[in-house]
């Protein structure tokens, strides 16, 4: 997933990674050590990648001014329209799961040019027909100020892309060893897909070496447990 995310980072862009996002952090750090050395990398509260001096307030102000090109969000539920739910699952007043809340997501999803959604699982429970509670919509009518929005969804099974014309998620590629049928049965809505679905290119030897070396070392400063456990030895 980190290698897939890395490919989405463009050189010279300003890319930010929020809280609880070790995989996007690893992906962005990989990109900055490979094809995007001039990208500005912001990783929340990382000693080497946090340019702000006035708390998260300064970061949100920076984002509100439209200065971010790429950001990463997740959702307790994600639906076919790219809608996110971070509030409650089930009936709102009697939910069976209370999620942490939207925090900055309903602003960042509108203001950051491209937002990549990520999940470390891919199940029909997460990828639903329609979200129970709408924290942040995938698209908005023209009356609403919205320069940005969803771009891709990266999971352990596949990459979905958000089509800004149809305002729907579409299957872009399946990871090596995964079939379209498997992805469909793990998804709670019917997937739009091209006739021939390409396979996601696997990480190269070079990618893996950078991930397991300098990226792991940098990620460890913010996510020590993740760095200890998530990087499989060669």
């Amino acid at each position, binding site marked *: 997933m980190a290698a897939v995310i890395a490919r989405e980072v463009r050189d010279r862009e300003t890319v930010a990674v929020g809280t609880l996002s070790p995989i996007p952090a690893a992906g962005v750090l990989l990109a900055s050590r490979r094809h995007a050395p001039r990208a500005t990398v912001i990783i929340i509260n990382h000693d080497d990648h946090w340019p702000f001096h006035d708390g998260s307030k300064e970061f949100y102000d920076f984002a509100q001014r439209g200065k971010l090109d790429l950001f990463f969000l997740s959702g307790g539920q994600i639906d076919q329209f790219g809608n996110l739910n971070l*509030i409650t699952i089930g009936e709102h007043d009697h939910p069976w799961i209370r999620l942490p809340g939207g925090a900055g997501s309903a*602003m960042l999803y509108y*203001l950051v040019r491209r937002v990549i959604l990520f999940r470390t699982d891919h199940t029909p429970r997460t990828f639903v027909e329609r979200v129970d509670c709408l924290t*942040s919509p995938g698209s908005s009518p023209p*009356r*609403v*100020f919205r320069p940005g929005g969803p771009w891709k969804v990266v999971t352990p099974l596949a990459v979905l892309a958000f089509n800004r014309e149809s305002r729907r998620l579409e299957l872009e590629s399946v990871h090596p060893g995964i079939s379209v049928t498997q992805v469909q049965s793990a998804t709670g809505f019917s997937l739009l897909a091209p006739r021939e679905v390409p396979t996601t290119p696997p990480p190269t030897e070079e990618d893996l070496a950078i991930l397991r070396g300098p990226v792991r070392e940098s990620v460890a400063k913010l996510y020590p447990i993740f760095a200890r456990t998530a990087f499989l030895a060669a």
Partner: protein
Amino acid sequence: MPGHVGSDYETLRPEFKVIPDPYSGKDVLLVPAIVPDVSFIHALQADAEGNLRLEEKEDDVLLARASRVVVASAEEIVDADTLRRAPYGLRLSGIYVAALVHVPGGAHPTACRGRYGIDEAHITEYLELAKSDDTFRTYLQRHVFDLKDHTAYLAEAGLGALAA
């Protein structure tokens, strides 16, 4: 507040209002300011006037300025000159601070820059015991009620050196 328009926040939070931005004409969401009655914040250092030196990664200054009353704790009490010359940290003037308490180790089990790191074992224990009221009582018993004072707490946390 940019964004948010068209989300369920509009219905879940009736105090949030959608209006056209008078400058661009586009719809925006207005959110009333939060005014806490009291906020508790922990400083890296403080002087006797209640001037604070705060962690730059936290939103303590924002919180303090929004609150009616601010109660601060600080790792160290230093003289005004030392506070002025410190290279790192956000400053909050003592005019915002109603009360100041010297609490070394006051951020434990979370981290405090230059003093101590995150206590991973303690936080893991807390997460486990916070799952139900019953087990949380065990946590309180172990880390609050069974300890004589803050010095005992620090000793148990392996931060006894700070108490000196």
